[in-house]
Each structure stands twice: as structure tokens, then as C-alpha cells.
């Protein structure tokens, strides 16, 4: 009986997951982008920064996404940019989620003065606009890589996650099964890990997805202002170059549009996946 339970839950999850159209759309778009970020750079024939073609040429068989004003291949930039954008999302999103979980669980489970303190810090950092902090940090870094960008994005993105997880922990902490676990004399760490965290697994997954999307958007904005990685390529940087070099005035849509469309598609797919998962985890939201 005890072994039967998880299996049944899992198969039910897969059943509803498969039936959920939103989840199917979201996950397929995401998978497509992940696949593209892996094989795309191999399909690209040129170095993203090299001057290889005619200047400002529209898409052709040779240059699939056209070329920039300087004759760089936009498709190569796009392929490499997609890869770094997903990496920043993954790293920044993971770090943000991790810190959020840590702060949220500790504050929510411990309560008392420590909670007051952590909650105060969370509320304060929550007010300060993330991008503003990222801008001044990035401006003072003379060499910026994808890794540093992800770390700083993760370090500034956690407050809302911490707040949400704290609230969840708060409501779980007073349940009977947690009281029972406490009576058996288990350590706090083990109670949090074995009783509280598993009950929030679905919630933590949703938090991670939103953190991922947030990291992608933050990175894109940062790159767009010109504070992205100093070497290498990103989707935001493509837009930054396009706008700075008057692609708007020259009507070079092939340079302007694809990178932003990719960001919108990735973030949109994440949101739709999020809603789909929410419907699966929360039966009340399911459409009949």
C-alpha cells in the first residue's frame, strides 16, 4: 500500500500533464529552443562577430537572417545568442530559486526574531528595482562574462521567491504531520527536508520557472542597455547593436526582429508551462 501510493500519483500526474494543452505547447516550444541552442551554433557557418558578407543585406540562401550594417551574419549571432540567453536563464534562475528557498524555508520554519530579520531584509530588497542595481553593478565591471551576469541576476532576483516560500512554509509548519515529526525528535533540518520541502515540490518548480523567465528578461534588458557580456553574443546584445546602428531608421527588420521574438517565445513558453503545471498540481484550476 505504502509503495503503491507514489506510483499512482505519478501516473495521474503524467495523465493530466499529457492532457493539458498549455503544458504541451509550452514544453514543446522550450524543447525546440533548447535543441536549437545546442545544434544552432554548429549550423551557423560564420563567427558571430566576423565581417563575412555584404553590408546590410536582407535574408538570402547564404545568410538566412541577413547581415548587419557591418556584414556580420545575423543567423550566427542569433544561434550563439540563444545559447547564452538560455544559459543565463538556467544559471540565474537556479541561483535565485536556491537563495529564495533557503531564506524562505529558514524564515518560515524558524519564525521568531530570525524570521523578523530575514523578512525585513526581503521586504527591503524587494522594493529596490532589480535592474537599477544590476545596472550600477555591471557598469563598474570592466570585464563581464555570461557567468558573472547570471550570478548577479540570481543574487538580486530571490526576494519574491523567498517571500512566497516563507508563506508556504508558514502554513505547512503548523500541520499535524509536522507536529508528529517534531514529536519523534527529528532535527529541524530533517523535518524541513523530509516533511516540508516535498510538500512544496510542485510550488518550487513553479518558482523556478518564473525565476528562469525573469532572469532571461533581466539579462535581455541589461544587454540591451549595453551592459551585457563584454565578449560573446546574446539576444539582447543583437537588439542593442541593431538599435544603436540605426536599423530602425534603415528598416532592417531582419536584424531587429528575430532576437526579440525569440526572447518573447521563450518567456511566453515558460509562462504557459507555468500555468499548465499550476492546473495539473491544483485540481481546482483544471478546465473541465
Amino acid at each position, binding site marked *: 500500500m505504502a509503495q503503491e501510493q507514489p506510483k499512482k500519483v505519478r501516473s495521474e500526474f503524467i495523465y493530466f500533464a499529457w492532457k493539458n494543452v498549455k503544458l504541451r505547447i509550452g514544453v514543446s516550444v522550450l524543447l525546440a529552443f533548447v535543441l536549437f541552442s545546442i545544434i544552432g551554433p554548429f549550423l551557423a557557418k560564420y563567427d558571430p562577430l566576423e565581417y563575412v558578407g555584404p553590408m546590410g543585406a536582407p535574408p538570402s540562401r547564404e545568410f538566412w537572417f541577413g547581415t548587419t550594417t557591418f556584414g556580420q551574419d545575423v543567423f550566427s549571432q542569433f544561434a550563439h545568442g540563444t545559447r547564452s540567453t538560455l544559459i543565463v536563464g538556467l544559471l540565474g534562475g537556479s541561483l535565485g530559486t536556491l537563495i529564495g528557498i533557503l531564506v524562505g524555508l529558514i524564515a518560515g520554519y524558524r519564525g521568531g526574531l530570525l524570521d523578523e530579520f530575514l523578512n525585513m531584509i526581503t521586504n527591503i530588497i524587494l*522594493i529596490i528595482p532589480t535592474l537599477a542595481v544590476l*545596472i*550600477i553593478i555591471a557598469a563598474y565591471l570592466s570585464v563581464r562574462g555570461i557567468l558573472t551576469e547570471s550570478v548577479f541576476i540570481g543574487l538580486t532576483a530571490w526576494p519574491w521567491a523567498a517571500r512566497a516560500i516563507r508563506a508556504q512554509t508558514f502554513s505547512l509548519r503548523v500541520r499535524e504531520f509536522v507536529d508528529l515529526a517534531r514529536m519523534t525528535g527529528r532535527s529541524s533540518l530533517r523535518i524541513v527536508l523530509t516533511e516540508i520541502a516535498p510538500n512544496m515540490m510542485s510550488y518550487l518548480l513553479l518558482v523556478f520557472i518564473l525565476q528562469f523567465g525573469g532572469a532571461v528578461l*533581466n539579462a535581455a534588458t541589461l544587454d540591451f542597455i549595453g551592459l551585457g557580456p563584454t565578449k560573446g553574443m546574446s539576444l539582447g546584445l543583437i537588439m542593442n547593436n541593431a538599435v544603436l546602428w540605426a536599423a530602425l*531608421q534603415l528598416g532592417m527588420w531582419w536584424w531587429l*526582429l528575430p532576437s526579440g521574438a525569440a*526572447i518573447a517565445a521563450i518567456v511566453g513558453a515558460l509562462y504557459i508551462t507555468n500555468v499548465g503545471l499550476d492546473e495539473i498540481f491544483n485540481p481546482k484550476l483544471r478546465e473541465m
Partner: protein
Amino acid sequence: MGRYLGRKLLIYALTFFLAVTIDWMIPRFMPGDPVSIMIARIGTRPEAAAVLRGYFIKAFGLDVPLWQQYLNFWSALFHGDLGVSIWLYPQPVIKIIQRAIPYDLFILLPAILLSWFAGNQVGALAARARWLDNTILPLGYLLTATPYMWLAIVLAWSLGNVAGVFPIAGAYSFAIRPHLSLRFILDLFHHWFLPFLSLFLVMFGGWAIGMRNMIIYELESDYSRYLEALGTPQKLIRKYAFRNAMLPQITGLALQLGGIVAGAVATEVVFAYPGIGYIILNAVQNQDYFLLQGCFLFIIIGVLLANFLIDLVYVIVDPRTRLGMTGE
């Protein structure tokens, strides 16, 4: 009410303190030396570089102990002295920012307020209305997922470049000198429309989805069920649901401010609209650190003021805060 607002004000004061401290700390404790970067950028002979270094160290106030630098920073701040811009040398940073702020308010206030009202109304209508829900919901998700700068680029390209209906750069035509006349005001609005629209649309999607979800949640709750059982007309139940759903939307506005700031910065960069965002772009390109730090402080002050205004609205709208029934 006093307790509620007092607690909030304490948090805002601490936030301001932390923000100023960050603003002071980052140039001093980051790896790399901004003074060297600036000198390298100017690129002169070694003897001239030494003089410049002395000048910059004086200008940054780096020649006194750290604790004194910190105090000096605060005292300069209260005197409105944010340093001198390098990009627009020798204009003081505060003057440049003061010039930019009206433009920020001009696009942000209408975009935030109108998108909030329109999003709430449309979202409330869409809840539990199959046809509208099936169109509004996907559209809403599409809009919120769109990066601000991309929607701005799409609008500028399609309506500005291809259709040629709207200008795509600046706050007014270069041919016109700012003065009070109908022609200038019309020109101002002509340039204002696209930045406003792109901010409005992205935010609208978020508010509509939020409201739609909240209304569904409220219609599922016990009081709605009870009213339904009593035979209350649907219209009245929905009215109550709307009122309750408003509260999280007001809180949501406060939480969204950071995202809105980012959106405004990106939008202004696309349209070369002379607000804080455009200044930040130029400060970044010219490595104008004083200007960047000034912009950071003004963004914080703006966000804190907006937060406080939202708190005041919340006190008016939600009687529970007035009676001290909610601590948060």
C-alpha cells in the same frame, strides 16, 4: 492605520539607507578601478595622466578615510550634489536628471494608470466568459511575455518606419524649439504616443490576466457561493468579487514597480526618448559613473514615493488596514 503606515515608512527609510549605501559602496569595492578606466579612456601622456588621477581622486573624494567618504557622500546628497557629468561636462548630474524626469512622468503615469484600469476592467469581463476568455487570456500572456524593448522595436518599425505614421526618435521634432503653442504640444503628443503605447500594452496584459484569475478565485469562494444560493443577481456578486479582487491588484502594482522601471528604461532607449532610461544609456556608453549613480538614486526615490502613494490608496480602499487588523 498609524501602525500600518509607520511600519511601511520604517521599511522605506531602511530601503533608502541601503540604496544609498549600495550606491556609495559599489564604486569603491568592486574589482577594477573606475579612476583608471576613465584615465585610460581619455588616453593622455603619463604626466598628464598623473594630474588627471589626482583630479579624479579629489573629485570622487577618495583621498580621505572610508568612514569620512561615507559621511561626505550623505552630506553631499542632502545638498543635492550628485557630482558632475562626464558625458555632458561640466553640467551637474542633478540638473541633467531634473530635465529628464518630466519626460519619465509624462509616459509612465498615463501608461501605468490607464493599463491598470483597462486591464482590470477587461480581465474582470473575461473571467468566466468563454469567448472573451479564450481571446484575452492568450493575448494577455503573449503581451506580458514580450520584452518591453521588443514591443517598442516592433511598434517603431511597423508604425514608424514602414507605415510612417509616427516619429521614432526624440520627444519632439528637432525642427521645433520647445515653446508653448498648439503646434508644439501636438508634436509632443505625436512623439509620446508610441513609447506610451508599448509600455501600456505590455503592462495591460499582466493586469488583465491577474484580474481574471482573481475574479475566478473570488467567484469560487464561500461568500460568492452563499450569495448565489440566496439568489443574488450575478451582477451584484461580480461587483463584490471585483472589489475584493482589486486589493491584490493594488499590492501587485507596488510589486511590479521594479519591472516597470526596467520597461521604461528599455522603451526610452528604443525611442531615444529623453527620460532617465535614455540618460542611463548615454551614461553607460560614456562611462559616466556619477550620472549612473545619480540615476540609480532617483529611480529609488521614485519607487519609494510610488510605494508610499500606493500604501495611502490601500488604506483608503481597505478598511481593515485602518482598523489595524492586518500587520503586513
